[in-house]
Structure formats: structure tokens, C-alpha cells
């Protein structure tokens, strides 16, 4: 798991990192114009995200069918693979109903506010050395910030819809999301602490000269490099943080067993009850992309990002990400939903205190390592 396993790529990246803010081989350098590069980046990311959402929904239906001893979608395409594509086309051609008495600006803007930030968040990830739209120092914080923006959109949708179910769903969703953001960020903080090396670490890249690179724990590329340099993934030294992160991530994405914001047996569909057509599809898209984002953050923080033997970097990155996503689907179809008071007690009574203790433990651990 050391950097020596990437003889071609690691020195280039290390060199790039030692001269800050000039990563070669990113889209921005391949195409000199930043706006053209961004356009290409958005194109690539949107294509990938669309495929990812289509695949994830299909996978969710197939896995749930498998867990419940059903067949799942079988009719459209081989193994029902094109079922979600057909659903997507149907949604595009549906009527956009704007109910009367809605708060129009809030109601119409909400899908955009939920949809746009998660796509931007995906563009911040380094999938492999050199395979990134951009690499920013505060990548981790920006990802959390953009993921957090969606909550505003959810509340706009709930408040603007003029529907009791929608407002109740939005209230619950906001309370849940802001609460679980604390353990989420605190568990990530333990990794930031261990990954940061202002003095620099030496990457032994199997080349004539080893590079000493100062590492900033809030840069996603640096966190991965720290794990390469130290030769182990942070899940081994921070298992508690990983569990806290995963539980909080389930809650952040409003997934079972934390799916009371859209508990279908009591609230119809929660905050997006009044949305139809592509507006509804955008909430759906954002929800599944959000799952991808939290899994990719976990991959970078705890599972070493692109780091791994034999296979190329992007393969490892997505192998880890989709394994986590499978875990999220598995949990959804296995655990029953929590009650709201249980949900809040789990967060403030257990996850937050344990995350604080874990942070202190990480500070001690940093001294030992």
C-alpha cells in the first residue's frame, strides 16, 4: 500500500503537491481555458452521475428483491437493466404540476438548490493521481459545505409546498441532518488530524529521489497521500470513527433506518410530496448522488482512496465506493425504521460523545505513531 506501487504517478503528484496550487494532468491543465475545462468536467461528471443514478436505483431494486426473495425488474433490457432509463424518460415527458397556493419562488427553486450542490461536490474528488477536475486545499470542508447546502433546498421544498406532509417531512429532515452533521464532521476530524503533516512526509516512490511533501489534512488528495505514505488505511487506526461516519452518513442521506423524513407509511413522500416530473426526478437524482458523495468521502478518509495493489487507481477508488454503497442498500432493506426520539438520542446521547472521545484518542494516537 505504499507509494512505491505507483511508480509512474506518485512522483509527479508529489512534485505537484510540493509546489502548491499547480497540479499538472488535471482537466484544467489539459485544456488551458478554465471555463472550457470546467465545461468538459461537468460533461464528464454529469454523464457519470446519470449512469451512476440509473445503476444505483436498479441495484437497489435488485438487491431489495434478492433480500426479499423476489425477482425485481426483469422486463426492460437484460436483467431489467434499462428499467430506470425507461422510468427517467417517462418522468421527462410528464406534466409539471404546480399546485395552487404554493410559495412559487421557494417551490420552483428548491429542486435546483438540492440538485446543484451535490454535483459540484462530486467534482472535488481526486479519483486517481491526475484524474481530478480540480484539487483544492479545503476539499473536504467544501464537500461537507456543498452536501450541507441541500438541507436548505429540502426546507424550501417543504415550506413552499403548502402541504402538511411536506412541511412535517422537511422539519424532521432538517433536524436530523443538522444533528448528524456534528458526529459526521467530528469523525472526519480525527482523520484530518492524523493525515496532516505540516512538517512533511517522505513519499518513497521507487525513484532516484524521494520527495518530502507537506500534507494538509483538509485536501482530499493529501489525505490519500498520507495513507499511501504511512502504508495503512485510516480505517485500521480509526475504526470507531469509521463506524460513526457510516451511521451518520446513513442519516445524512435520509436512508433507512433513518428515513423518517419520508416515512412513506405516515408522510406519503415527505418534503417532495407535491413535486412531479423532472422536479421530482431532481430530488431523486440528488438523493442517490448524495449517497455516492458520502461513500466517496468515506473511501478517501478511511479506505485509502485510489490506493491499492495491482489494479489501477480509479478501479480501486470505485471498487471501495460501490462496496460501501452496497452496504448502504443492504442496511436499508435489513433494519426497521427508528422512531424520532430514538434517532435524536442515538445522535446526541451516543454518537457525539463517542466522537469527541475518539478525537481525544486520535490526538494521543498521533503522538504514538
Amino acid at each position: 500500500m505504499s507509494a512505491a506501487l505507483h511508480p509512474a504517478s506518485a512522483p509527479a503528484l508529489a512534485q505537484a503537491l510540493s509546489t502548491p496550487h499547480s497540479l499538472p494532468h488535471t482537466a484544467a491543465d489539459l485544456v488551458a481555458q478554465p471555463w472550457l475545462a470546467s465545461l468538459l468536467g461537468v460533461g464528464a461528471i454529469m454523464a457519470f452521475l446519470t449512469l451512476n443514478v440509473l445503476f444505483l436505483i436498479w441495484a437497489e431494486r435488485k438487491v431489495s428483491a434478492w433480500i426479499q426473495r423476489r425477482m425485481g425488474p426483469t422486463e426492460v433490457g437484460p436483467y431489467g437493466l434499462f428499467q430506470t432509463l425507461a422510468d427517467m424518460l417517462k418522468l421527462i415527458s410528464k406534466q409539471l404540476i404546480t399546485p395552487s397556493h404554493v410559495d412559487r419562488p421557494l417551490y420552483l427553486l428548491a429542486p435546483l438548490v438540492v440538485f446543484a450542490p451535490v454535483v459540484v461536490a462530486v467534482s472535488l474528488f481526486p479519483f486517481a493521481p491526475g484524474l481530478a477536475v480540480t484539487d483544492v486545499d479545503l476539499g473536504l470542508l467544501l464537500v461537507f459545505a456543498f452536501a450541507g447546502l441541500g438541507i436548505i433546498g429540502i426546507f424550501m421544498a417543504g415550506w413552499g409546498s403548502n402541504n402538511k406532509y411536506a412541511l412535517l417531512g422537511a422539519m424532521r429532515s432538517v433536524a436530523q441532518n443538522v444533528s448528524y452533521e456534528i458526529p459526521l464532521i467530528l469523525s472526519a476530524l480525527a482523520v484530518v488530524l492524523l493525515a496532516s503533516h505540516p512538517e512533511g512526509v517522505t513519499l518513497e516512490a521507487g525513484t532516484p529521489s524521494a520527495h518530502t511533501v507537506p500534507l494538509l489534512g483538509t485536501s482530499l488528495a493529501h489525505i490519500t497521500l498520507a495513507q499511501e505514505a504511512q502504508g495503512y488505511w485510516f480505517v485500521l487506526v480509526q475504526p470507531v470513527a469509521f463506524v460513526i461516519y457510516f451511521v451518520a452518513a446513513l442519516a445524512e442521506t435520509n436512508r433507512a433506518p433513518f428515513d423518517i423524513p419520508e416515512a412513506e407509511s405516515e408522510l406519503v413522500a415527505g418534503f417532495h410530496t407535491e413535486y412531479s416530473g423532472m422536479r421530482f426526478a431532481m430530488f431523486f437524482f440528488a438523493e442517490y448522488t448524495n449517497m455516492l458523495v458520502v461513500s466517496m468521502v468515506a473511501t478517501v478518509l478511511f479506505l485509502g482512496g485510489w490506493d491499492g495493489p495491482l489494479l489501477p487507481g480509479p478501479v480501486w477508488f470505485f471498487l471501495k465506493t460501490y462496496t460501501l454503497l452496497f452496504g448502504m442498500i443492504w442496511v436499508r432493506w435489513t433494519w426497521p425504521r427508528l422512531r424520532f426520539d430514538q434517532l435524536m438520542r442515538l445522535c446526541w446521547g451516543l454518537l457525539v460523545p463517542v466522537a469527541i472521545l475518539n478525537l481525544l484518542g486520535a490526538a494521543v494516537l498521533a503522538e504514538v505513531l
Partner: protein
Amino acid sequence: MIEIYEPYIPVLLIAMIVVVLAGVILLANGLLGPKRPTRLKGIPYESGVDPVDSPRHRFSVKFYMTAILFLVFDLEVVFLYPWAVNYNGFLADPGFAATAFGSMAAFLVILALGLFYEYKRGAMSWD
């Protein structure tokens, strides 16, 4: 000064492009989809029952408590991040290592005590 922000320019551009793209998708749906509004489609969906009353009632004070707790703890996290980023650097300085750990440990203990107090006062119980 401006070079520091250079890697962020693509992020800004992507954000703008995504917003435009999402607008175009919604517009396309508006053009492609049928437009036959009726009175029944316009009323709020409440499981087939005609809605009684406005949905915007007062809500439980617990939601405000949660929001305030979030604000407090989010601010604590803002203080913790710079410390965490520099912590390994502090450790490299033998004279400062104990201070770096001790001061933040004290901060975290006070934080935990506050959390314990809030918990005992019932700020997080929803029964």
C-alpha cells in the same frame, strides 16, 4: 494573492454550469410535458382528503433547541479544524506538544460537560 484562489475557479464555474444545466432540464420538461392543469391537480395531496386549515402551524420548540445545539457544536468544530490540521506540526516542537494537547483536551472536556448538562436537562429528549 489571486493564485491561492486559482484551484477554486473551476469549482465556481462548475457551480454556474450545473445551475444552468438544471434550469435547461426543467425547461425541457416544461416544454415536452403536457399542460392540462385542473382544480383537483392543484390542491395539496393529503391522501385524498380535502385539506383542512393551513399547514403552517407552530411547531415544537424541540426543533429550535436542536438548531441551537447544532449552531453551538458547529462553531466548536470550526475551532477544532485549524488545531487538527496543525497538530502534527505542534508535536514536532517538544516544548509545545504538551500545550497543544492539553489546551484542546481542556476545550473538549468543557464541550463534553456542556453536552452532558444539555442531555440531563432534557434538551435532546423528544418524549
